[in-house]
């Protein structure tokens, strides 16, 4: 039954995709009315004005561009024109750096908050205040104080992936079952040992869920951050192609961003499953 359902799901997915591509193709195929113009004038104008082609590219055009990118993902034509593979590598490197720094900060603080009701009360107002701030709002401040644009982007990733991890860690640690802690107390287990052998395994699924949310947000934010700062990365790629009003390249970038985001999410989903246990 389960396998059958999966198969049916896949078929419906494919049908939806085909339907979407068909509608897209039809919608962009249309040719608008064109004004009469002298050939001399027409030579100076773009296809949208001379042939009335839609400014929105069709799926075939986008597919052709995608193939082109996949064939040459790592070309390097100077500092402002690099292949999509290189741009992705820059973005992933930035996200990973900021994210790992956030893990290093969030886990200890989360444990502290979860284990100490006093610290929980004390830090709560700060977290509540800073959590809803859009990470990009930090950007001007970061640029001004850190004085380095790529470090600023990393800082923005750090700050945006911090909160979900922090809150989930604190929550996971705080909601470890009383009985287990009581058993530990009965056996006179030390604080450090209690944290590592009882709380950590018990809270691990919640913590990893927090990490999974964080990586998603980090990947969302990097694109916006790079569009803002420019230079390198997939966000810069989108901005640069927008600059040229090349919608097919923007759509391709969207696809690639989606695929990478999905991969990152899948990895953490696997990890979460690995640390989850049946009671």
């Amino acid at each position: 039954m389960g396998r059958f359902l999966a198969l049916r799901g896949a078929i419906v997915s494919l049908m939806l995709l085909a339907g979407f591509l068909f509608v897209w193709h039809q919608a962009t195929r249309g040719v608008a009315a064109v004004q009469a113009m002298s050939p001399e004038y027409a030579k100076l104008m773009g296809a949208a004005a001379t042939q009335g082609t839609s400014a929105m590219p069709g799926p075939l055009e986008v597919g052709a561009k995608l193939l082109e990118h996949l064939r040459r993902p790592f070309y390097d034509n100077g500092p402002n024109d690099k292949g999509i593979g290189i741009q992705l590598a820059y973005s992933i490197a930035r996200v990973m750096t900021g994210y790992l720094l956030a893990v290093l900060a969030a886990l200890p603080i989360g444990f502290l908050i979860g284990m100490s009701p006093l610290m929980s009360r004390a830090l709560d107002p700060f977290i509540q205040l800073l959590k809803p701030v859009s990470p990009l709002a930090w950007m001007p401040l970061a640029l001004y104080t850190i004085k380095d644009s790529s470090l600023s982007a990393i800082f923005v990733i750090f700050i945006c992936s911090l909160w979900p991890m922090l809150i989930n860690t604190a929550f996971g640690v705080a909601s470890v079952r009383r009985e287990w802690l009581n058993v530990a107390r009965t056996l006179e287990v030390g604080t450090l040992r209690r944290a590592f052998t009882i709380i950590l395994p018990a809270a691990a699924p919640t913590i990893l869920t927090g990490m999974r949310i964080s990586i998603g947000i980090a990947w969302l934010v990097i694109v916006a951050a790079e569009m803002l700062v420019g230079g390198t990365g997939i966000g810069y790629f989108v901005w640069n192609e927008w600059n040229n009003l090349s919608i097919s390249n923007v759509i391709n970038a969207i696809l690639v961003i989606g695929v990478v985001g999905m991969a990152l999410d899948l990895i953490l989903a696997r990890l979460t499953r690995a640390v989850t246990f049946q009671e």
Partner: protein
Amino acid sequence: MSTFDDPFDANRRLASSGCACGRHRSQAEHAHEARLTLQCAPVEQPRFAERSYEGVVVSTVMRAMFPKDAARRAFLKSVGAATALAAVSQFFPLKTATEVFAETGPIEKKALKIGFIPITCATPIIMAQPMGFYAKHGLDVEVIKTAGWAVIRDKTLNKEYDAAHMLSPMPLAITLGVGSKPIPYTMPAVENINGQAITLSIKHKDKRDPKSWKGFKFAVPFDYSMHNYLLRYYVAEHGIDPDADIQIRAVPPPEMVANLRADNIDGFLAPDPVNQRAVYDGVGFIHLLSKEIWDRHPCCAFAASQEFVTGAPNTYAALLKSIIDATAYAAKAENRKAIAEAIAPANFLNQPVTVVEQVLTGTFADGLGNVRSVPDRIDFDPFPWRSFAVWIMTQMKRWGQIKGDVDYTAVAEQVFLATDTAKLMREAGLAPPESTSKTFVVMGKTFDPVAPEDYVKSFAIRRV
């Protein structure tokens, strides 16, 4: 008088149309007739064309001595170019000055990063890289595309960039501490003159009178930009209050065409290739070229921090020479096609070649079905006239961007480095000439840099 013209040419035309002698309709006709009549060729031509920065120094000195072209002409006519050169050299050693300027001490820093915004105003800065002008002066320069003016400002203040392409009001604003903390900033060269336009959405093609623009939403690249001041000036001259009757917002140039297509804005005063791109995509038409508001107005600038200028003088000199060289090259109409091809690829402007070519050659589609030919639609002239700076500050004052008293001349002198020549003159033991200013006409109204406050007060629509 342009910086690249031979300053000792008494016959060089005063007005921008017609020929040198005034008897022909164009310089070409004049040359044609000259070819038909027998003439003695001068034995030795001064080689200004070959060493244009020498030309720039000489030009500047002459200009400083004779701020009015007519006076210079009268002087040259009465004594002759050779005597004039000798006379000028006598109390100002031009050779020494150009040598000091051309001196190549060891370059302190070879690898430089220069930021730019992908618009044709940046042409000299960009093309100097693919066309080898930086390399020629021993520099290894990376030109980095940047997302917006605020970012380019921050990255330059951060020292991620050694120098940058800025809007000419920006170094003034940074130095004055308007919109950022005050940091001494310098602008050794203007990059381009003219080269902007007012583009309106194609749906407004019948509303050519600015009086019918009430309620329009306009975009300009930045608050501290010539675009903002020119647009405000233009509509105010037509009785429209730019703060009350229309909306003006800052939108990065690359996003303007997309916004125009989406009907978010009704038009913009923007740098090219944005205007031409809007035409190319059939979403807008060119209402007015900025040269029709103020012919030969400055737009973008090559800017560097004062720290860089004084801390690495040889690097700075080499860089400035590259830029002046590139600007001189770009000023020649016959090179414009090659330049368009060099700067159009994705690494630089990322635009179709034909769009860039239309901007640079001045033969362009206007979006209403006409092909227009305006060869000086964009032009390149590096000399940073102080009076430009003073005009910009009068507009900052007029629209309330700066409050209180402004020491116009002092700031202009500090920022607009016409002082490079002045510095060389001081080194040679001479008092630099008072005037690096000229008067000019904006929409029929003459601007006198000596009386900026009166100028501000002379406008009916103003915020002070």
